[in-house]
């Protein structure tokens, strides 16, 4: 088993059969994670560097755990503690790291296109762990793995993505991935947080959350970034909550089962009510576990790991 593309930079144009291969592989690693000894030697001798030019807690830990479970050697780099603060350029930093003989780079960077740029500077396999407001492909794959686990199919699945679409790499990668897998996607959020021309990617846009809940099999609720409030993208939390907040009361109006996802970190009481986040419909913690399994699958497939 191998993937057609050498890097994982984004899900735009990514082959559906490869997404399926990653999901299937992720389930085999889920079994490993349920064992008492959770480590396999698949990537023994491989060196992976985690380049984090932007703060991250869960993605970095998830990647690190995935790498350790696969027995890879890992090095962590974060911008605040590096020579970037001494004025070293992006190019110099990554070339220095490359010179240390690295097999793969996992990169998180605040600028769209940074992961692609990295492939021009290094020979290593590059995995995008979020480049600004562009893509976050591993998050979308773990979301799809979680949906697949829950429903057993993605084709024809109705998924609502709720909240700040404009500033969300999670949304863009989910859109590309879900559309590739044949799912139907509707975006819902304030008009000021829906990017222009997004319909051209094959999604629908709605401003009516109740209609989306009625329609959807699953909702992916995105984090609302509070700092967007001051620049008149939306007026207040109160108003956001009343228009788009996912609450038990709102869900109770619809006599149906609906699956609730959230990529984290959550603003409890803002985009999602605590009772919903902790309720039976939420698969938020499954997403976290699937995150490790999916990233193990991606690393394994891209680095040509050996089976036990």
């Amino acid at each position, binding site marked *: 088993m191998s993937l057609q593309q050498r890097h994982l930079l984004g899900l735009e144009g990514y082959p559906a059969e490869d997404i399926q291969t990653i999901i299937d592989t992720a389930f085999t690693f889920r079994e490993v994670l349920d064992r008492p000894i959770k480590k396999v030697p698949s990537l023994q001798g491989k060196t992976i560097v985690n380049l984090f030019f932007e703060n991250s807690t869960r993605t970095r830990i998830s990647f690190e755990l995935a790498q350790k479970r696969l027995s890879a050697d890992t090095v962590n780099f974060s911008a605040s503690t590096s020579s970037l603060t001494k004025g070293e*350029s992006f190019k110099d930093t990554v070339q220095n790291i490359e010179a240390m003989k690295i097999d793969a780079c996992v990169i998180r960077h605040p*600028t*769209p296109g940074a992961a692609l740029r990295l492939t021009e500077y290094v020979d290593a396999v590059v995995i995008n762990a979020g480049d*600004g407001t*562009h893509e976050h492909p591993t998050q979308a794959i773990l979301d799809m793995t979680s949906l697949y686990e829950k429903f057993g199919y993605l084709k024809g699945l109705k998924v609502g993505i709720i909240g700040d679409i404009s500033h969300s790499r999670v949304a863009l990668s989910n859109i590309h991935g879900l559309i590739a897998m044949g799912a139907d996607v509707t975006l819902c959020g304030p008009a000021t947080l829906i990017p*222009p021309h997004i319909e*051209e*990617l094959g999604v629908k846009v709605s401003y009516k959350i109740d209609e989306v809940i009625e329609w959807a099999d699953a909702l992916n609720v995105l984090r609302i970034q509070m700092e967007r409030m001051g620049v008149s993208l939306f007026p207040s939390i109160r108003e956001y909550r009343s228009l788009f907040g996912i609450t038990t009361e709102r869900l109770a109006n619809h006599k149906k089962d609906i699956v609730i996802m959230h990529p984290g970190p959550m603003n409890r009481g803002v985009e999602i009510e605590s009772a919903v986040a902790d309720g039976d419909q939420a698969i938020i913690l499954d997403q976290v576990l699937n995150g490790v399994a999916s990233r193990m699958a991606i690393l394994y497939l891209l680095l040509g790991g050996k089976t036990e």
Partner: protein
Amino acid sequence: MMKLKKCAKKILFKNGTIIDPILEKGYKGDVLVENGKIAAVGNVDVKNAEVIDCSGLIVTHGFCDLHVHFREPGREDKETLETGSRAALAGGFTRVCTMPNTNPPIDSPESIRFIYEKAKECPIHIHPIGAATKGQLGQELTEMAGMSTEGAIAFSDDGLPIMDGGVMRRVLEYGGMLDKPIINHAEDVCLRNDGVMNEGRMSTRLGLPGNPVEAEGVMVHRDLELARLTGAKLHVPHVSTATAVKHVTDMKKHYKHISAEVTPHHLFFTDDDLFEYNTNLKVAPPIRRNEDRVALIKGFKSGAIDCIATDHAPHTIEEKESTFDVAAFGMIGLESCLGAVLKVLVHEEKIDLMTVIKALTVNPREVMGFITNLFENNTDAELTIFDPEETWEFTKGDIYSKSSNSPFIGKSLVGKVKYTVSKSYLAII
């Protein structure tokens, strides 16, 4: 490598196709340059002249670019008047107007004088455009009369749009009194916001902040209205959108002192070309959708857009070899201009060569009030001689600018400059 030398006493450009953009005529013939001046145009027989065989080549007026950045003073690491002149000659340009966004900006009679004096030594004619407001801050008028006396040819705050409509009105009134064209970088900065590329499907796909076409449309519309109100000459730089073409077309029906330019890059590229975050395509105004590109071509055909200008904007490798959000705006364009516009306008769009040559010669000269009839005897020779059919790949080796930030590198172009005559110099390219 381009060779630059002083013209021989007599040079005969023989057997070329002479295109006269004033008479709008093309004919086989010769041009004799004697002591750097036009001595005869037609069938010329002369002894003791250096003869340059121009068969298969077009011989026409030297090109004139209304919009270049030569970075002097302040950023001589990117370009100087001298290196910019060499880039111009390689592209067939004998006359350029330099924008005032230097460091410090050209916003006083003294700073105009500085450019004027330095330009004297250069092998092309360089005319400084003065800042319209002090420090390009969009607030107080500059001493436009004193600057005109020292050689300012027009006024503009260049990359910094004059947002305050009241200030723009006064700039037009005062500049109009001096009969100098006013050029405003037409973008509403609030609408543009932090946009780094055209707002549309591509910006959404790439996750980059977009700059909507309306940012240009509303500003061009305002400027046109204010030009009519004040009776001033308005030159609209680098038109990039269908809406702006429409506004210019409409206003030209009612008010005649309007001119407009388009750049080779807005005619050549579309925002789809940014799919790999190529920072050399980061420019202001941004590369737009194909439907805008098509509208620019239509506007050029109809005459709404009358000039081609490069907006030659050199930047260092360090400023471009970075991530897209922080990379500098702008690209160089003098050396690749002819090959790009002939390819798009003549070879692809079948627009006649005369229209394109006029947009590079007589039309921009008319905007600035330069002498236009360059084939008249005893005129200082400004000639451009080019092969209209040669297909060639633009490479780094074709660049004479101090910088090399060009998205045309690796592109196939049609039409190549062979000789440029300017200020008694002969450039052999």
